[in-house]
């Protein structure tokens, strides 16, 4: 059973359809790269998986459970964490608070969840939090291990998150996602707008993230970078998967065709 799979995933923003029946799968321990041009639907795919966009329940499965209809917070509590495009740190929070908040609501049920569950059962409905069970958020990652992975963050821990350089902000965004000890980490364009030397630093952290129990889906515009780190690659074009394969098996021409829709 795949850790995460989408079946005929569709997504739309009002009248505009962004995804047309996307099928992807992530096996435990794998790194999957999603490549594609601007507007191909990569970020929409991430937004669907994380529950920011809602879908039909059966279109996305996590550990065999249908999750397409769940809200973002429930999906996060199941162990799917996201490093959003543009980093999206909380400006009112310090670096350390940004990290802490990533693990603050992980796993289990907080008081609000219990109240919600109680009210829903009282009214005879299904328990909305039942599907969040099964992931307690414990594991390798904590403030200490995140600071060990990115030592510069410890030095800057009392600064506002947004006072950091782009690369350091990206480190905070990755650390923040790790704090919930996810079994799936989604990284949306983590190299966008960063200097090559910074990108290298950030990509060097990925093996250690994998070693400690997370499988990765990496959305990347930089095809070379994607092919280097991925076990498998999907290419999206105009909301459809146009290529799937292992980096060793696909050629430049395959990618060119899948990326631009031209036959080489």
């Amino acid at each position, binding site marked *: 059973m795949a850790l995460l799979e989408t079946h005929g995933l569709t997504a739309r923003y009002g009248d505009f359809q962004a995804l047309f029946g996307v099928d992807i799968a992530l096996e435990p321990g794998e790194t999957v790269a999603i490549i594609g041009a601007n507007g191909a639907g990569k970020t929409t795919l991430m937004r669907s998986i*994380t*529950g*920011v966009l809602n879908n039909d329940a059966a279109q996305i499965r996590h550990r065999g459970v249908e999750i397409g209809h769940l*809200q*973002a*917070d429930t999906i*996060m*509590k199941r162990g799917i*964490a*996201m490093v*959003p495009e543009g980093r*999206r740190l*909380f*400006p*009112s*929070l310090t670096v350390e*608070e940004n990290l*802490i*908040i*990533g693990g*603050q*609501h*992980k796993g289990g049920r907080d008081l*609000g969840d219990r109240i*919600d569950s109680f009210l829903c059962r009282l009214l005879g409905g299904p328990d909305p939090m039942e599907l969040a069970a099964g992931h307690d958020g414990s594991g390798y990652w904590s403030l200490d291990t995140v600071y060990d992975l990115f030592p510069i963050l410890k030095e800057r821990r009392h600064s506002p998150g947004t006072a950091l350089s782009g690369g350091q902000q990206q480190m905070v965004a990755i650390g*923040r996602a790790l704090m*919930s000890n996810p079994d799936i980490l989604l990284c949306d364009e983590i190299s966008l707008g960063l200097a090559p030397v910074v990108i290298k630093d950030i990509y060097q952290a990925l093996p250690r993230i994998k070693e400690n129990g997370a499988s990765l889906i990496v959305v990347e515009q930089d095809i070379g970078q994607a092919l280097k780190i991925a076990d498998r690659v999907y290419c999206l074009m105009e909301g459809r998967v146009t290529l799937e394969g292992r980096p060793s098996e696909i050629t430049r021409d395959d990618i060119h065709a899948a990326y631009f829709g031209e036959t080489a």
Partner: protein
Amino acid sequence: MIWIDTIVQGILLGGLYALFAAGLSLVFGIMRLVNLAHGDLIVLGSYVILFVVSALGINPFLAAALAAPVMFLLGWVLQKLVLNRTLGEDILPPLLVTFGLSIVIQNGLLEGFSADSQRMSLGALETASVSLGPITMGVMPLMTFASAILVIVALNQLFYRTAIGRAFRATSDDATTASLMGIRPDRVFASATAIAMLVVTIAALYLGTRANFDPSIGPARLIYAFEAVIIGGLGSLWGTLIGGIIIGVAQTLGAAINPEWQILAGHVAFLIVLLVRPRGLFPKGA
């Protein structure tokens, strides 16, 4: 010396206005919701306390402690079932809905308690005072002011020292990204309004024990609260206290010159601050 006394009385009055304003400021700061029913919710709080006082025959302070959980729950349900549905890109729905709520509360109170003005008695405490040289301060105004400071300290601690405070700030920054952190924004908003209603209960206690109240006085309290929040700068609770003090001092000074000028002087002070510092005295992020 009479002037110093007048200014001190004004500062203490400012504590009451800061209490009116703190809940409004809290809710606006977290969810950008301008609650036009805030003044009426304070008046509703006073009636809830009055109801407990007359039903159980207990002291208003004790009654407020019993009313607080009721108001907390009311705030939670109100936000969860009604106000959350109005939040979005458009700022008009929350204004319309809370304006409607204001009318509903006023008429509900009119129906339930009549238009007669009410008063809760505190016995000897009402006239108790302490003297400091030439200045005499009422115990009740002093307690009001102390409560305002306590409320602001407590809210700041909540905001900057607790997990729920972190969730408040994160959700206020970016609700979508907050939901990726396992936070449910609608629940954060419900908690915020519930906490604001605890502050409303404290404001209601002093509103109802220091002067007469009737179902129609909510909107005027809202105006004072608004002015305090805006003078202080949106999002700053200590600024709100300063704003309350400025209105309070302006009112007592105005009244000392001519009793008819009390209310007017407060509004004029507000206008002057708006002219000089359109974003308030302590705007956030400036």
